[in-house]
């Protein structure tokens, strides 16, 4: 069973190649029953960058995102064909422990979904089940660290035992981010994380994404092109299940190569 690569090895690899791809996806085809949702998608996700997946509704960007942490496995009738490698390891290898993969590749969902437990337990649950913390002191440290990095500590430090569901929408989403960070993932996947939030909460989370970039690789699905332009370094444009164009964010938004990309970003469709 393949396990975590040691921290030392990873640090060495990062130091050697700053633009190294963290995740390499080749010829990805996804089928929901008979219907094909993604066709021949090739994409590289660069380490320590924010990659935005944009496109009109139903184009397959969330489907592709879910391939990266194998959440499509729990969907009935969903079949993923192709090759996805993280740090050179095939994540669809039958010998790979998918539970551990999901600890290394965290996910934040569109609608904030904290557990109906206390704020403390929300953040401490993940490290506890993966054996990352032993004893209360270590758990306290991890909880505080995660909440600080998610920018939520100051607001909740006096009410850690209150229910996580009692927070506002923006705070709940930051709690979900803290929960994802607590298990020390390498990649964080975000599926339209701000679509259920007001503009001020959205701005805070976008700031947060920028800060997180230093320690994590982030892939974000967004239907807001302005958000993609603000937050990401690389952008991939999907349309009807096909990856149309991918490149540096600035290039995509100022000088797209494909006319479908041009049509989408100028608002002619989608």
């Amino acid at each position, binding site marked *: 069973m393949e396990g975590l690569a040691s921290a030392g090895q990873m640090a060495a690899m990062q130091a050697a190649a700053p633009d190294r791809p963290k995740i390499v996806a080749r010829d990805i085809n996804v089928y929901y029953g008979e219907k094909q949702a993604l066709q021949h998608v090739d994409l590289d996700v660069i380490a320590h960058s924010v990659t935005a997946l944009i496109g009109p509704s139903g184009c397959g960007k969330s489907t592709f995102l879910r391939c990266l*942490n194998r*959440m499509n496995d*729990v969907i*009935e009738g969903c079949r993923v064909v192709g090759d996805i490698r993280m740090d050179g390891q095939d994540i669809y290898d039958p010998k790979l422990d998918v*539970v*551990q*993969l*999901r*600890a*290394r590749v*965290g*996910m*934040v*969902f569109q*609608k904030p*979904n*904290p*557990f*109906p437990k206390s704020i403390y337990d929300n953040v401490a*649950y*993940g490290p506890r*089940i*993966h054996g990352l913390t032993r004893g209360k002191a270590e758990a306290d440290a991890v909880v505080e660290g995660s909440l600080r990095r998610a920018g939520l500590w100051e607001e909740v430090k006096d009410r850690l035992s209150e229910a996580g569901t009692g927070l506002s929408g923006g705070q709940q989403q930051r709690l*979900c981010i803290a*929960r*994802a960070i*607590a*298990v020390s993932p390498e990649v964080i996947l975000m599926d339209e994380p701000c679509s259920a939030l007001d503009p001020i909460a959205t701005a805070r989370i976008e700031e947060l994404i920028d800060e997180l970039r230093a320690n994590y690789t982030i892939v974000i699905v967004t239907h807001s092109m302005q958000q993609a332009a603000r937050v990401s370094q690389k952008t991939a444009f999907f349309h009807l299940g096909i990856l149309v164009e991918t490149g540096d964010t600035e290039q995509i938004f100022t000088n797209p190569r494909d006319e479908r990309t041009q049509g989408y970003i100028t608002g002619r469709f989608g």
Partner: protein
Amino acid sequence: MASIADEPGKASAARERYWGSAANQRNIRRRHWADRRLQLYGIAAIGIAIVLLGVLVVSLVATGHTAFVQTEIRFEVTVAESDIDVADPFKGNYRKVVRDGFARLVDRELSRPEEKALFEMLSAGAQYILRDHVVDDPDLIGRTFEVALPLADPMDQFHKGEIPRDIPQEQRRVSDLQIQFYDQFLAEGRIAAPFNWGLFFNADSRFPELAGLAGALVGSFYALLICFLISFPVGIAAAIYLEEFAPKNRWSDLIEININNLAAVPSVVFGLLGLAVFIQFFGLPRSAPLVGGMVLSLMTLPTIIIATRAALKAVPPSIRQAALGIGASKHQVVMHHVLPLAMPGILTGTIIGLAQALGETAPLLLIGMNAFITSVPGGITEAATALPTQIFIWADSPERGFVARTSAAILVLIGFLVLMNAIAVFLRQRFERRW
């Protein structure tokens, strides 16, 4: 009405004319009536249900309320050491002690038939009640003290007004002489009708004035306990497996259909199954709460499985996704997240299933829990009755006292059912708030 093609001014003027017209007023009135009719249908339906329930409860209370009090008579007895052996108080001649004390209440000398009539007024179990008194407190031997003992069923019914005075003596169960004695004792203030604790604490008896539900309550409790211990873990485990882990293919469809069908099987069939398999094949004791509990658990199992599956399905998928997303295994998702959230629904379904099991009569009759048992069962393998079967037995008995007691027992059973359902509702509300 003007069409949209006309000038906009004309169209809106025509529209305004319509809203104020008589035709529209009629429309509005019809609509209000339809609303009111719907409300009235609902109120009528609820009213009918309440009336039917009220008729049931009122008729039960009317026939049964007399069973909640028991007529007693107070008099002095002398426990002489010549009658009761200090070394073995259990074996004394309490019959003589009671009769001597009772006879002293009448000043004059009585002939044999008159004596017989007098002693028939007192319950045949009075001597055993005195015996238990003395055995509990041996210091009473050699002393004279006052005691309150129950009257026999005919006198009990007479005191409660069930037997009229003005019909001829041959048509009455109490004779004129007995009524004379009764009037004398009543004038002396010796007769009272306090609350009938014996209804709850005595075991069954062939004398209605002494009969109680203690044996049935304990038998029902043991049977329900066994039922819960078997069906709760098995039902929840089966439901979790079927809902979360079983592959969705034709086999699991088949199992689901069969479980739903089991819930619809008539309960008497389970009784036959219990008789054939548990008692005859496995040789378990007849009439035991153990077998009763096992048969009831067969009936409660489908209810718990169906309720648990519904509760598990009701947990929002966002919780499962969140747990899967941070790397919880399927097993951890179910045990740490889904099951605790589904627990209120599971508990409610379980309590409702147990309340149904409490009232089941047919299967218990078939495994023999309608035997006449005059002691409280000491364990789950001793012969016992259950509350519904005890009602069945008493309903068959001709004494007037048992008629009242049958209704009283039904009220006790309904009381327990209401209590259990109230607990289910309370638990459901309490847990809903926390979530």
